[in-house]
């Protein structure tokens, strides 16, 4: 009996053993890397003191709104864009801006001082924004406007389009994706994230797009793996019991 189990354990593992190695390797990577680091949160700084707030307290930065400087009021905005939805007042660099959605116009960005609608980001502005929020010191390696789904890299969800892709030089190629209309950094990517994504694919054995946990290949190997591992458990159990019996004698 034990002999048979030993034999099947050996033969099954000869087929699925490599996947066990992959599972533990990729699993180890995923649990040991801090998820916030993976998300690239360290690449990005929100707060940075700017010139016009030099005499402000150290905590006060340009990220704090100066409400008395909002010359274009919310009522102005609502009378000009009556269908505006999801209106927020925030920052773009040191400028105070409104961002909202409009049925006809899509995503809109408005200077809260002048009330003028801001044109979609050009390359220079996108570079400026990326460098402003980048926590590192590396130079920009490339800048590219991505506006259609076909050219969207797999690391970016197409719902963020159109975006500027700003890639910094360096080993981990930190990359900022900035929405062209809202001037918001929608995503940051770097080597550790890209590796995490591959680890995930190998972990769920989805070798085409990494989206699908429900694939038959995983099902098959996991089922065989279950049987093989249970038999391994029997062998271990038997070993302990035998040892105990031997000890009792």
């Amino acid at each position, binding site marked *: 009996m*034990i*002999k048979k189990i*030993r034999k099947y354990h*050996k*033969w099954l*593992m*000869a087929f699925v*053993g490599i996947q*066990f*190695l992959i*599972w*533990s*390797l990729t*699993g*180890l990577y*995923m*649990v*040991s*890397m*801090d*998820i*916030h680091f993976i*998300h690239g*949160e360290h690449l*990005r700084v929100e707060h940075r003191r700017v010139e016009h707030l030099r005499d402000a307290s150290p905590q006060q930065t340009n990220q*704090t*709104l100066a*409400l*008395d400087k*909002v010359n274009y*009021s*919310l*009522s*102005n*905005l*609502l*009378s000009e864009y*009556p269908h505006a939805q999801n*209106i*927020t*007042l*925030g*920052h773009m660099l040191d400028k105070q801006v409104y961002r909202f959605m409009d049925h006809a116009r899509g995503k809109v960005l408005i200077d809260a001082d002048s009330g003028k609608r801001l044109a979609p980001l050009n390359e220079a502005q996108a570079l400026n924004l990326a460098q402003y929020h980048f926590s590192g010191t590396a130079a920009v390696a490339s800048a590219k406007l991505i506006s259609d789904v076909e050219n969207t890299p797999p690391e970016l969800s197409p719902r963020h389009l159109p975006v500027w892709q700003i890639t910094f030089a360096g080993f981990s190629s930190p990359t900022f994706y900035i929405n062209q209309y809202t001037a918001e950094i929608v995503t940051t990517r770097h080597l550790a994230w890209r590796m995490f994504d591959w680890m995930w694919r190998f972990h769920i054995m989805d070798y085409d797009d990494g989206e699908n*946990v*429900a694939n038959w290949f*995983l*099902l098959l190997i*996991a*089922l065989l*793996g*279950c049987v093989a*591992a249970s038999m*391994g*458990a029997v*062998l*271990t159990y038997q*070993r*302990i019991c*035998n040892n105990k019996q*031997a000890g009792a004698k």
Partner: protein
Amino acid sequence: MFKLNTSLHKWLSLLVGIQLLIWLGTGLYFNLMDHQKASGAVHLRPVNHNASTSPTQLIPFDQLAFDGAKQIKLLWILGHPYYQLTFESGPHAYQHKSVTLVDAKSGAVRPLSETLVRTIAVKSYDGAVNIISANLLTPPIDELPREENPVWQVKFDDANNTNVYIDANSGAVLAHVNDDRRLKDLMLMLHFMDYFNTGGFNHWLIIVFAIASLLLSMTGITWLVERFKSGQLRIMLKPSSQQVTVTEQSSQQSNTLTLKAQQPLFDALAQHNVLLPSNCGGGGTCGMCRIHSEQPLKITEAEQARLSKSKLDEGYRLACQHMAGEVTHITVRTQKKSAKAQ
């Protein structure tokens, strides 16, 4: 080396064995589960909050008695306008935020009332339900372990025990947690070894277990490779047989047996009722299945670990390490009698 490898494999399996089975079982569950159901969102429908107000009714920003916000959002909650002032927030919605809700018409601070919360909860549910209770919870929240902000919990009396969670800072419906979702959360908790309910998988317990499983896999694969090298993992195409003359050491009786060539000698002999002593059942770890042969047989790692140099030189080998096809004449010490006596 070999001995270390196999005993490590056994001890590691003892340590991670159960968790390994849990990982496989929960992994299978994720593979097979109904994603729609498991999300808990079968009855979730969007709540329409918008309404139109004359813009002049909104109090201007500079009349707000607040300083230091980094973002202001015009938020509609069930047709009433609010200013949501965010002072502090993290990259993820669940992370701690410092937010104040202000009535955009009066300028007064107005946190979500229980009545509003109850209405939002009912509107977010597709179907007729009754509310059992509504409570404002502060983190940690059992069913939303990652959440770091206060959240309203509205309990429904539906068949699936739905709890609706509503963000106290915005009135947004965060989740419907029902029995299907609870099952998935339990599976996730088991898979992530999140036995302290942190909602995450970056903790030392799972890291230690992941390292142990990695070693378990590596020692297992090394063992398999070793097996393969010693010819015990070869797929046989046609079973050929081998005539082996077996001499019993004490009685000096000889028998010629017809054995399957592609079977470990240990097993092949056993089939002919020649039972060699063994504690490991042919695993190459007990070193008890000793045989003697005048033929020049290769020496496997298991044999190096289990037999002394002099014994090896004399021609002693382990029966479980060689195929029946490798030998023609061997001498054995059987436990035939004692086996029968038992």
